């Protein structure tokens, strides 16, 4: 029997010990009217060989595209050692480290992760992960509401150029608690937040949410916005790409006092695209707010012999202790993805990570220059960008995407998802994984597609 080791003799002996005749007798406390006898609407089981063929065929159908699509999930090179080590059974098949003495491996690794992530963000503390970037932002918003006691009402000002899925996620996750979400507008020319910040009174807002880079890839003037928020007693929540933070100013150094809560999607740090997950959300903050943090925290301490060890700490914030008064309902997080990220950051080091960021930036500049040299294509927003940019095409972006798909290129994201006015706009991402050949192939494919599409229109 697949995955079940019992022999017939075992079963007989066990039933005998229990004192029943058949396994079915063990279900005698389930009322008869609720019992079902089988699951016969489902198929019979497959063996490993048949399943392998089937899944390989499915994987082939989904694979093979050259990826120039980012929009919150990014293709980066993942060193071989990352998942070879992360997939060791001792990491893969361990539970949450509640029995600290039997979980020192996971606990120390998480302490090292917290250290690297806090240093990368320029803040004092990191938790041990949340589900993903979008849900981490929702948790950051709830945390800000608890932490900012100066605010009169639970109002949050959110950058209008935040990833639309993040905005939708926060709405779903915080709306039931009566939190008001308002929008900080972006400039139509730059794609960045309006430099003229709105007039608000002290204590009007719990927090301001800033994305760096923003959804269009643009780099925000974070210092001004941070200082403005702090002047009005609002906290600053930064949503950042962790790879970009090897190149761009870290949130802890924004403005006079630095961002208060930093969160985002950890996937770029060694986690594959994998249809959207499992990824992991990160969340860092200042020491002052540590008791308002959601999720697990690992602390370094000593054992009864004075030897260094690690354990879950400040558990009184969590649901298994505090129940209805917990800071969040989160229990299971994304431990394995964090394991991979920790190994990834260790292998690359600070300079390797900076090289990934710089190469991604440089490659995106090359493609952008090639594309905007084509007739009819212009750069939609004129701000500096990290590794994503928006082009405006002379045709609906979707027709370009379809044309490039025929050449096995995933061209980018059609921005009509954001707003119908942006239906000629394409959000393109280039990372360090692309060679100059890849970039030229893309630019040539766009050139041919445009000729074809525009001729067809003229006909």
């Amino acid at each position, binding site marked *: *029997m697949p995955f079940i*080791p019992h022999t017939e003799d075992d079963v007989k002996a*066990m039933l005998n010990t229990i*004192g029943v005749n058949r396994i079915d007798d063990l279900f005698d*406390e389930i009322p008869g009217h609720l019992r079902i006898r089988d*699951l016969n609407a489902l198929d019979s*089981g*497959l063996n490993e060989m048949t*399943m392998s063929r089937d899944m390989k*065929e*499915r*994987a082939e*159908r*989904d694979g093979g595209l050259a990826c120039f*699509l980012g929009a919150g*999930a990014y293709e980066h090179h993942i*060193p071989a*050692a990352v998942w070879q*080590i992360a*997939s060791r059974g001792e990491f893969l*098949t*361990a*539970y949450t480290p509640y029995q600290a003495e039997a979980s020192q491996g*996971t606990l120390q690794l998480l*302490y090292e992760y*917290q250290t690297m992530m*806090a*240093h990368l963000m320029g803040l*004092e503390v990191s938790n041990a992960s949340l*589900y993903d970037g979008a*849900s981490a932002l929702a948790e950051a918003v709830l945390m800000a509401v608890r932490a900012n006691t100066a605010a009169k009402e639970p109002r949050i000002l959110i950058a209008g150029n935040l*990833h639309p899925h*993040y905005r939708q*996620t926060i709405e*779903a*996750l915080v709306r*039931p608690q009566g939190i008001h979400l308002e929008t900080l507008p972006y400039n139509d020319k730059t794609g960045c937040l309006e430099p003229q910040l709105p007039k608000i009174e002290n204590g009007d807002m719990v927090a301001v949410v800033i994305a760096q880079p923003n959804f269009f890839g643009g780099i925000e003037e974070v210092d001004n916005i941070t200082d403005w928020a702090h002047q009005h007693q609002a906290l600053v929540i930064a949503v950042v790409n962790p790879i970009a933070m090897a190149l*761009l*100013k870290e949130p802890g150094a924004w403005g006079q006092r630095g961002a208060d809560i930093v969160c985002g999607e950890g996937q770029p740090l060694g986690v594959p695209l*994998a*249809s959207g*997950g*499992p990824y992991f959300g990160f969340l860092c903050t200042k020491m002052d707010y540590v008791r308002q943090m959601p999720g697990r925290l690992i*602390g370094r301490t000593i*054992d*009864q012999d004075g030897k260094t060890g690690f354990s879950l700490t400040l558990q009184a914030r*969590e*649901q298994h202790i505090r129940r*209805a008064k*917990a800071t969040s*309902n989160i229990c*299971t997080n*994304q*431990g394995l993805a964090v*394991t991979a990220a920790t*190994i990834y950051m260790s292998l*690359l080091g600070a300079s390797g990570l900076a090289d*990934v960021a710089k190469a991604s930036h440089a490659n995106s500049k090359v493609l952008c220059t090639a594309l905007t040299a084509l007739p009819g294509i212009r750069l939609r927003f004129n701000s500096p960008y990290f590794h994503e940019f928006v082009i405006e095409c002379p045709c609906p972006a979707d027709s370009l*995407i379809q044309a490039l*798909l025929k050449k096995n290129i995933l061209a980018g994201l059609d921005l009509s998802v954001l707003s119908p006015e942006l239906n000629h706009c394409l959000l393109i991402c280039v990372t360090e994984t692309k060679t100059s050949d890849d970039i030229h192939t893309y630019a040539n494919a766009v050139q041919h597609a445009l000729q074809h599409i525009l001729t067809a229109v003229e006909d």
Partner: protein
Amino acid sequence: MLIFEISAKGRRNHLQSPRHAPEASDIPAHLLRKNAPLFPEVSELQVVRHYTQLSRKNFSIDTQFYPLGSCTMKYNPRGVHQLASLEGFLQHHPLTPASHSQGYLQSAYELQQILSHITGLSAVSLTPMAGAQGEFAGVAMIRAYHLARGDTARTEFLVPDAAHGTNPATAVMCGFRIKEIPTDKHGDVDLDALRAAVGPHTAGIMLTNPSTLGVFERRISDIAQIIHEVGGLLYYDGANLNAILGKCRPGDMGFDVMHINLHKTFATPHGGGGPGSGPVAANERLKPFLPTPIVGYDGKHYKWLTEKECPQSIGRLSAFMGNAGIILRANIYARFLGREGLCRVSEYATLNANYLMARLQQAGFTLAFPDRRASHEFIITFKKEAKTLGVTAKDIAKRLLDYGVHAPTTYFPLLVPECFLIEPTETESKEELDNFVNILIMVLKEAQDSPELIKQAPHNLPVRRLDDLKAAKELDLTWRDSQ
């Protein structure tokens, strides 16, 4: 030794990152980072050796018997892991057009169908990323249902005192007040207390069945009737679904919505604390409120259904579509087992639990509910030993680690003092269970003969008992260069 402590300035892995990356001269200097983050500078071998050595300090299913109650630590098949890690799946971007995502979409759709059939509920959304998010989805759906009917008076959620901590925490996140319902001495919900608690303010109840006490809630149909009669709805916490696969279905018990822990019942690895996946299943009444995206099928092609097609949805719970890789794994696991294998899961999980319970009772251990059948797990209590020997459940748990088995869940549920919640799962052999019984007998004997040995345990692990008070008082959450 921390990875930072084996670091040496200037050591680099040039193989791992691009060479000759030019400076970003077009970005204004005031927006650039000035100081590099403090990361270790180590060789590839140092990284591999460091984390391999750390891994060896973990207990895991692959290396130890792991009877952690309520967590379903069953074998995580290697074939599942390998097939979900095929290159085509790993390199697939979540926003790829559906035309080039049919392999994944088909797998997700099939899992929706399988879960719908197993639970007796009509529709499934796979997007919640863990059990607690599945709970959030379900309770938020109940909230949305009442509000859609203009029923704004329903501000209370009922939660039994035996429930997981996530249940009350979730209901609070959804904006509800909690009313706790007591348990009777047989481990069932106290129906009189329930009747007294319900009313026009009742939005719903969250229940686990079999409950966290390891017994089947026999009067579940009465509970459903009491809640439905006052206009409330029932949420099923799927933590213990492993116990009833193919034997009975939450939909038939009267539940309106539930979540399923794929990382428990469907054998996806726990990864040292995640990722999990907590799909939510609903009946016709709550189906319109399911979180998006959901996978649809028109008979030819699979496609994403979003807020356009599902306007009443509670919305999106993650940036993309949940823990897709875990969803793939659950699909493969379910299709490996098929209809026969899925029924066997609950049969052998229940057989193992009842066998272990019978053996421990015969050996003189105290059962919390001796007159009840175990589900896939059961509770023993060391209340007597705590009184007579001064040895607690925690002491015994720590001593078990010395003998190379992971401890069962301790001090949960909170109702039973000095308890172990023991869940062997179906993938453990009789020999392994017998070995566990022998170890427990030995530890109990040690507790009688030399209680100090037990109170000081563990003795054979990388560290001994940790100073948790110091950890919380003198917070050391990140390593600093000065240390």
